[in-house]
């Protein structure tokens, strides 16, 4: 694999038609990477028990998406599922595990604790506010804990990202998919109209009122009063 990913692009660029070959190699490699993600279940808290174990169980079966080969060693994994809060003492270990993983490696952060610190964000002496302060995170799955369906949504998003993303020309650059779609029954013209109305409302200015509202207006008044007293 090292030969293909490291040296092949350099040789093929000079050959006529080589870039087409590289693109098709990209497509094959991304397809196989996306459909054989080997997970490293990094479960530190209740998300791991409620969500991660449920996804592995037969009712919601992760092997439908090709991610069932759970080895509990980072060296045989390329997708890290962070399920649970990360504390200061754990942060070093998590970074170590991430660096031991096989490249290319992907990270999914599930649950509000792994995303931002969640309910432990304030007044906690030990929480790390978000796993993305330690390792780069590709997909966030919100929830407390998320349903297994939500996790599968995150997994499919990651697969989509891998399929359309990396090229062996630039091995570390990923393109995240943009999934935003308008809700049912809303057109883009409606949004434009609403924004226009808001802008018009905001830009309709009463000059005298606006001048009074500023903080400095009161001070200027004071100053004028003082000077007029001195003059009289």
């Amino acid at each position, binding site marked *: 694999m090292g030969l293909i990913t490291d040296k092949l692009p350099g040789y093929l660029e000079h050959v006529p038609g080589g870039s087409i070959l590289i693109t098709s190699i990209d497509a094959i490699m991304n397809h196989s990477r996306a459909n054989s993600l080997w997970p490293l279940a990094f479960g530190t808290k209740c998300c791991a028990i409620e969500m991660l174990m449920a996804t592995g169980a037969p009712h919601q079966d992760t092997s439908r998406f090709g991610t069932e080969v759970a080895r509990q060693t980072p060296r045989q994994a390329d997708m890290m599922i962070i399920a649970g809060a990360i504390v*200061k*003492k754990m942060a070093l270990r998590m970074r170590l595990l991430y660096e031991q993983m096989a490249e290319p490696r992907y990270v999914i952060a599930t649950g509000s604790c792994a995303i931002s610190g969640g309910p432990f*964000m*304030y*007044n*906690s*002496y*030990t929480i790390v*506010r978000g796993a993305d302060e330690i390792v780069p995170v590709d997909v966030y799955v919100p929830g407390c804990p998320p349903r297994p369906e939500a996790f599968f949504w995150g997994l499919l998003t990651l697969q989509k990202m891998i399929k359309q993303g990396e090229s062996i020309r630039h091995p570390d650059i990923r393109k995240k998919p943009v999934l935003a779609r308008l809700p049912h029954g809303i057109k883009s013209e409606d949004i434009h109209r609403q924004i226009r109305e808001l802008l018009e409302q905001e830009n309709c200015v009463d000059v005298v009122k606006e001048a009074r509202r500023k903080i400095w207006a009161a001070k200027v008044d004071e100053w004028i009063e003082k000077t007029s007293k001195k003059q009289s």
Partner: protein
Amino acid sequence: MDRENLEKAVINLEPKACGCAKTDRAAVEVPVEKLIELMRRLKSDDKFAFNMLLDHTAVDRIAEGKFELVYNLYSIVHGHYLMISCSIDRNKPVVPTVSGIWPIAHWQEREVFDLFGVLYDGHTDLRRLFLEDDWNGFPLRKDYSDPDMLTFET
């Protein structure tokens, strides 16, 4: 023994102790000087036979300038519970260890030392348990502050 009889019997054993009315289970407050003696007798006396230290923890009463140390005892023989509490000065938090009586207290006292900074006189291995060895301060004290901590003000 039920709650009232147990409290009465402990107070008979140690006249300086007094009962607490606010708790759900039998509870007794003791001065620090009498703590070890009372604990030793509570374990060895067949009438009480408290052969299990369920839990040991502390409460930071910063307004009164005191730490309240709480010992939860359980007797497997009789099946009764007892809560012993004793208050110590917050600025000089030294208390004799009970790890000679119940060996599990080694760990529980290390935990209380880790989070509250209570020093146990006679403890053989008083190190931090949960936090890193180079941690500054004791995080469960009410006046603890940390540059990484995000404080929430209501």
